[in-house]
């Protein structure tokens, strides 16, 4: 499917406008433009084109009857095109996968919805030439997501149980959530953390539990970005996929680099996990801390 406006995308829009208008009689042109993700001028051109279309003969009896001078659109005599077009395979697959995610999020808590989803997927499978295998894992359970979103809207506080990979601690924190956002391939909850007294990002898939704290609203003012950046220098002894993935700030092919981290324990653990493929050359506190940790771990084996 074309991504920019090609002639064919326009034809598709013309065909899809008819069923949409049939069930949305009297819709404002401006709203129609928004729904179809285009401009009022384009939609008006479309309506002018459709107005010339119809069954062979092309007398007023056969032509699509459109009324839109008032800025609101009504359509008649368009029965032939009135049914919404079938989903194409890519569309059907995208919906199929979306349903899979919903099903994973609902889990056992909403089994009646899960069985509705299965029925829909069954119907969609018939539109795909062969059954693709799809398996989607949810990052948050649906109740957790609903709680977080509600809390963001009403500016409430949450208590989250969170596993921090850097400290390897599961902790409870009180958080005033701002948003759920995505960065790279992860979803994050961003909010003001009362334990850290600063804004923190929490990886959604590491949130173990969420509860709402009743009747408590956000603090009115606080320091919003108080994350202390730590600069450290590395030397790459052995380049590998793992090195690039653990330290995504590295460009492929470099042998030394200065990186920025936000937590000293995270830096120690990341460098340890890279098993000597990467050396920390500075600052000396970090280098020494890594040395001490590796040595202590090694002593476990003596």
């Amino acid at each position, binding site marked *: 499917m074309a991504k920019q406006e090609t002639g*064919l995308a326009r034809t598709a829009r013309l065909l899809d406008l008819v069923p949409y208008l049939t069930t949305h009689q009297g819709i404002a042109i401006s709203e129609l433009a928004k729904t179809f993700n285009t401009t009022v001028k384009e939609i008006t051109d479309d309506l002018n084109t459709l107005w010339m279309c119809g069954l062979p003969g092309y007398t007023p009896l056969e032509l699509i009857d459109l009324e839109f001078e008032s800025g609101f659109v009504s359509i008649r005599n368009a029965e032939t095109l009135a049914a919404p077009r079938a989903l194409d395979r890519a569309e059907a697959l995208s919906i199929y*996968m979306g349903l899979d995610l919903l099903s994973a999020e609902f889990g056992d808590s909403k089994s009646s919805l899960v069985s509705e989803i299965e029925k829909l997927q069954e119907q969609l499978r018939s539109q795909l030439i062969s059954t693709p295998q799809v398996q989607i894992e949810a990052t948050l359970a649906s109740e957790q997501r609903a709680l977080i979103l509600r809390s963001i809207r009403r500016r409430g506080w949450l208590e989250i149980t969170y596993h921090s990979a850097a400290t390897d601690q599961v902790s409870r924190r009180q958080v005033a959530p701002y948003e759920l956002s995505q960065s790279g391939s992860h979803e994050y909850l961003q909010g003001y953390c009362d334990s850290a007294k600063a804004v923190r990002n929490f990886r959604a898939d590491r949130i173990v539990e969420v509860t709402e704290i009743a009747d408590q609203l956000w603090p009115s003012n606080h320091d919003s970005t108080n994350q202390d950046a730590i600069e450290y220098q590395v030397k790459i002894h052995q380049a590998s*996929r793992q090195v690039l993935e653990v330290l995504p700030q590295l460009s492929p092919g470099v042998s030394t680099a200065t990186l920025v981290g936000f937590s000293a324990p995270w830096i120690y653990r990341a460098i340890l996990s890279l098993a000597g493929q990467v050396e920390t050359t500075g600052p000396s506190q970090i280098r020494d801390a890594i040395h001490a940790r590796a040595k202590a771990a090694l002593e476990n084996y003596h």
Partner: protein
Amino acid sequence: MSRKNERLVNLTIALLATKRYLTKNEIFRNIEGYEGSAEAKERMFERDKDDLRKLGIQIEVGGLDPLFDDEAGYRIRPESYALSLRDLTATQVTLLSLAAQAWQDAAFTDLSQQALRKLTSIGLDSDSAQLPILAPRLIGADENLRTALDALTSLTTIEFDYLNIQGVAQKRQLQIYGVQARQSHWYLIGLDLEKNAIRNFRVDRIQGAVSMIGKAQSYVIPETFEIAELETATETPFAILRVRPGAGYQLRRLATKLETADDWDLLEVPIFDLDFMTSLVLWHGEDVIVSSPIQLRSAVVSALEKLVKIHG
């Protein structure tokens, strides 16, 4: 351009409305927009047919009367043209729109919005009373996943450069059978043509763009193929780890057995990948000791020795 769009819409209407096959001559005579020499009309019609097919509209070709007239005729069956999801309940419509809204990444918005418009054209109100208002998201879906899904729906082989474990990009050819979103990553699963075996590939490890090669419908997905079976198919070895109480949260989540004690807890953790397990143990520093197997133990010990040496 608008003349051509008009002609395509008129052609669609006429082919949908007809109860029998329309011949080319009937089409040229009756449908507005076919002008010029016989040859020009012919070319125009061929292009129009192609265009409608590209939009996913199936044009059926059939004979008028096979005994007397071999001239082909054309029609579009309303049942193939129209959305086949019928008799939907309000709840189902809501579920479908939530599913469409799950795609938030740029590479997919046109696709999901178009699907959503078709669904809302059914004219049924959705019922969101018992459903979440905001859709969960499928994240990290980029152009490469989009191409892969197009290849999956059309059964076209794909080719891409893939970062191997040494961090070197290698060309791979894949007949894709399925996709998986697991632990925040997208995976493509299918037949690796060079290895002639089922392999999975993490989408963010693909370098550059995925391209489709060869023709559509060039393979079939074996009916016996199941992603779920793939994971448990191989015998997984286990590691026995000693872990400090209160530490090793991630290892505890993976553990299949756990015995608690005062100084060290004993964990049995499946080793899906030795390198991954080595890194995970190292991540925990002095809070974890490997008891067995010996391969994991020596991998950890030699990594620690190297770390001590280079940081000394």
